[in-house]
């Protein structure tokens, strides 16, 4: 699927992916939301983020350029989705 997606749709996709692919042995405390910090929460490590980016790129059909990306935005579900959508617009 490489159709144009809204931010809300992409956020849902990412949350569902994280629910199925978070670090083994980790039980998320509470709900994963658009505001969840994926790294600080311990849900994903750097390898997990790589897998997630590969997934997002396959779903959104665009390459994510992380050069000069704000680390604070990058870690949060909705921030990562916004970075993706900005890449598509560019």
């Amino acid at each position, binding site marked *: 699927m490489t159709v144009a997606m809204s931010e809300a749709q992409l956020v849902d996709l990412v949350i569902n992916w994280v629910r199925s692919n978070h*670090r*083994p*042995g980790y039980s998320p405390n509470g709900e994963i939301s658009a505001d969840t910090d994926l*790294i*600080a929460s*311990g849900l994903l*490590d*750097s*390898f997990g*983020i*790589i897998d997630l*980016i590969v997934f997002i790129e396959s779903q959104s059909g665009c390459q994510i350029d*992380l*050069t*000069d*990306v704000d*680390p604070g935005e*990058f*870690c949060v579900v909705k921030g990562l989705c916004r970075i993706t959508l900005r890449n598509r617009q560019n």
Partner: protein
Amino acid sequence: MTSSTSKLANPIVETYSRLAEHYDDELNLHSCWGQASDKALASIYLKDDYRLVLDVGCGTGRALARLASRAKSVVQFVGIEPAENMRNLALRRVQPFRNVQIWDGSFEHIPLETGSVDYLFSIFAFHWTTDPEAAVREVRRVLKPGAEMDLFFIGRDNGREFIQKTTPIFLKYMGPALLLESARMRKQLTKEAAHQLFAKAFSPTEPFIDESYQTYYDTLEGHWGWWVRIEGHFMQIPSARKERCDQEVKNALQCLAEPAGIPYTIHQLHVRLRRG
């Protein structure tokens, strides 16, 4: 055997070479990696009919020297190692053994003839390969039909305590792009991915894959003794910021301390190839 070189412009190889003289320090030998390596080596059994034994990523030659010291002289040992200074130390160590040679090489470039090796082993080196598929093809190429193999390497969930504590710090100092680039330097496979990789290359022979998790406890100083060797990941942090980053990492690791020490869990994958 053929001679060949493998000059890899690889920051990990360069870091191992730069720090080679500290590789056999007591601190490192007693670290989690020293203990896990000894355990892997102790499990290696050389059969009487092996004639050529290959150690890929032989480091300073400790395993080769130990195996050669108790093997028959008809067995030829070859160690390959891409880090020049590690290789030089290995050459010095194996000097008393006329049946041991040390060559420049790596998993992707093994300077041996096709179908020449009876037994291949490697202790905690395969995860540094730059191209796992090419590496496994090269391993398959040099093995004789019916050869045996033991590869020990780290799995996907290795060092989970450290990774969780340090990833936010490295993200802050490196930014997302460099952090992910550094993570890609290690090929940490799941058991399933490793099985797929080796089964495809060795078909129809079925490789066995054992998976284990072992937690080791050490002091901060003890862990730091090996941690410095993965600095190749972090070379792109400017030196002024690197000091601050190191300090934050040390503080974060100290927070993990339990009565037994600071834990580090090695997720080990062991790929075994056996006859029949």
